[in-house]
């Protein structure tokens, strides 16, 4: 069993490679598609720049070489984690990303845990007490959660809890001069709730549907006939099995949290990668933009792999062929 699992993982890892190569080609094409090319930032500054300076800049960046050479050089560098220097700060892109990564990871983790704690029990109780008031409320709330524009929800929470009630700070990660745990947690609350909303809505619905379909299965009848208590039957047989697809969905959505973080960080001025991304787009800092996009894509691919492996690991019925 362990052997075939390792085989499965290695096979999936190998499959990741052509995928990442395909993504990198698209990314590279994207860089080239920017009007004005990578030296666009110079051209947009509005000042008249001596064409020879632009030429030497292009030569320095290797832009006058044929495209495929540029691509391979870029790819070789990217694989080692070198995404070039940021246009606006001239610092290595990877350094800037690593600097802000912990903040975003913190937010994503908080949102993930919060969503899991709320959505799963909600989904379970909705399924067990189908058609009850709780079920109805949960379904309605999850519809609302999916339909709500995330940034508007953030603005509304900010309006109510920060501006009007003053319970939580409006933005940022810490208050200057007070880096205590309480302060950090207070800053995390609103952005965390906002980021998690979509997933609470989605996961609770999915948990409910999954548990409902498991509860109808024959083996549940057998378990009850054996004489086990209802609670045991539901929890040990029902929920354990129903959790399997839900967990793999959760792993997949982990990557989506990154996209969501982009908006949430902007609304709450959270000093993470999402906000860095927006700023770099505004300032046309393309090395930084591409670096973050590549990182995001890698996360998506990676978490797809994790989701599949977790699913295969949890469900003993799946063979690894």
């Amino acid at each position: 069993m362990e052997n075939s699992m390792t085989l499965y993982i290695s096979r999936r890892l190998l499959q990741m490679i052509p995928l990442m190569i395909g993504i990198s080609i698209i990314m590279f094409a994207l860089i080239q598609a920017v009007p004005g090319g990578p030296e666009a930032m110079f051209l947009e500054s509005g000042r008249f720049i001596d064409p020879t300076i632009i030429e030497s800049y292009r030569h320095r960046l290797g832009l006058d070489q044929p495209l495929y050479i540029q691509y391979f050089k870029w790819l070789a560098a990217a694989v080692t984690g070198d995404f070039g220097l940021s246009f606006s700060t001239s610092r290595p892109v990877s350094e800037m990303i690593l600097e802000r990564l912990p903040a975003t990871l913190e937010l994503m983790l908080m949102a993930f845990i919060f969503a899991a704690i709320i959505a799963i029990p909600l989904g379970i109780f909705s399924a067990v007490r189908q058609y009850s008031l709780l079920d109805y409320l949960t379904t309605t709330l999850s519809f609302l959660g999916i339909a709500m524009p995330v940034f508007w929800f953030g603005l509304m929470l900010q309006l109510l809890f920060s501006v009007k009630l003053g319970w939580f700070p409006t933005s940022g990660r810490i208050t200057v001069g007070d880096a205590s745990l309480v302060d950090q947690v207070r800053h995390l609350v609103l952005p965390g709730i906002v980021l998690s909303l979509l997933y609470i809505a989605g996961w609770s619905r999915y948990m409910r549907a999954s548990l409902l379909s498991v509860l109808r299965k024959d083996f549940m009848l057998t378990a009850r006939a054996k004489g086990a208590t209802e609670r045991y039957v539901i929890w040990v047989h029902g929920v354990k099995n129903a959790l399997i697809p839900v967990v793999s969905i959760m792993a997949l959505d982990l990557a989506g949290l990154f996209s969501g973080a982009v908006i949430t960080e902007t609304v709450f001025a959270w000093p993470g990668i999402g906000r860095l991304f927006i700023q770099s787009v505004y300032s046309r800092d393309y090395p930084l933009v591409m670096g973050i996009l590549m990182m995001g894509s890698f996360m998506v691919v990676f978490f797809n792999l994790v989701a599949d492996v977790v699913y295969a690991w949890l469900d003993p019925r799946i063979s690894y062929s």
Partner: protein
Amino acid sequence: MTLNETDNTLERRETFSLEQSQVMSPSVMFWRQFRRHKAALVAILVLTIMAFMCFFAPVIAPYEFDAIDLRNTKQPPTLKHLMGTDELGRDLFTRVLYGGRISLTIGIFAALVGTLFGTLIGAMAGFYGKQIDNILMRFTDIAFSIPTLPLLIVVSSFTKASLPVIVLVIGLLSWMATARVVRGTILSIKEQEYIIAARMIGVRNGRIIFRHILPNTFSAIVVGATLSVGGAIITESVLSFLGLGVQPPVPSWGNMLQDSQTTMASKPWLTIFPGLAILITVLCINFIGDGLQDAIDPTLRGK
């Protein structure tokens, strides 16, 4: 959610009067089931009213959408200005109506573009199979793996901010889900016996596609298309909020929220109403999509 009672009644009636039982065509059955979904019916009503109001904005709106009235700036909702005014004295209700025209239009057309493209790719992959399927699915996987919103933000930043471009950009980044669903449906239909039989008789490929395969994928496509309108509306609002979508002075629900963050404390109505419009619209669309799904695919009912 009161499906259970009505289902039983239907059963009893059918058992008692077999001779009188009507032969119901699929479309009749569809409408019967759809009518039972109360939320979807309410949603259609609300959505129609909203769309109506937005469409007839030039007639209904009490003011011009860019009518500046510097004596009445920053008013909270009053009888004269149903939703208040902004910092230039423009009536918010009017702007919400006009913004709705833009946002709804973008949403619908972007969903159309995405669905069309997705159906094309999915159909080709599903129908031709083997190598073409392989290549197209690899392509779809790659497209799926790039985080959509960040990519959208980047592409919007260097394209012209005109409406058709925005529609195209949003649409071209939403086709993947439709493609997968269409491909899956086609693959499962292809294996069914009546298709193999048709092939054996010698029915031409084109005819098989149009008469047998397409009508069955139709349901999946329609549900997907409906839901993606909601997604497109939200995407447009996010882009406009970030300043990358519809540009002022053309109002859209998204760009009305653009500067609202700074004015939120003193003029909350400027933030509340446009966002509420988006919320209600997308909510209705989702309910309708849910109703459609319930009505179209009976195997999914009672989930």
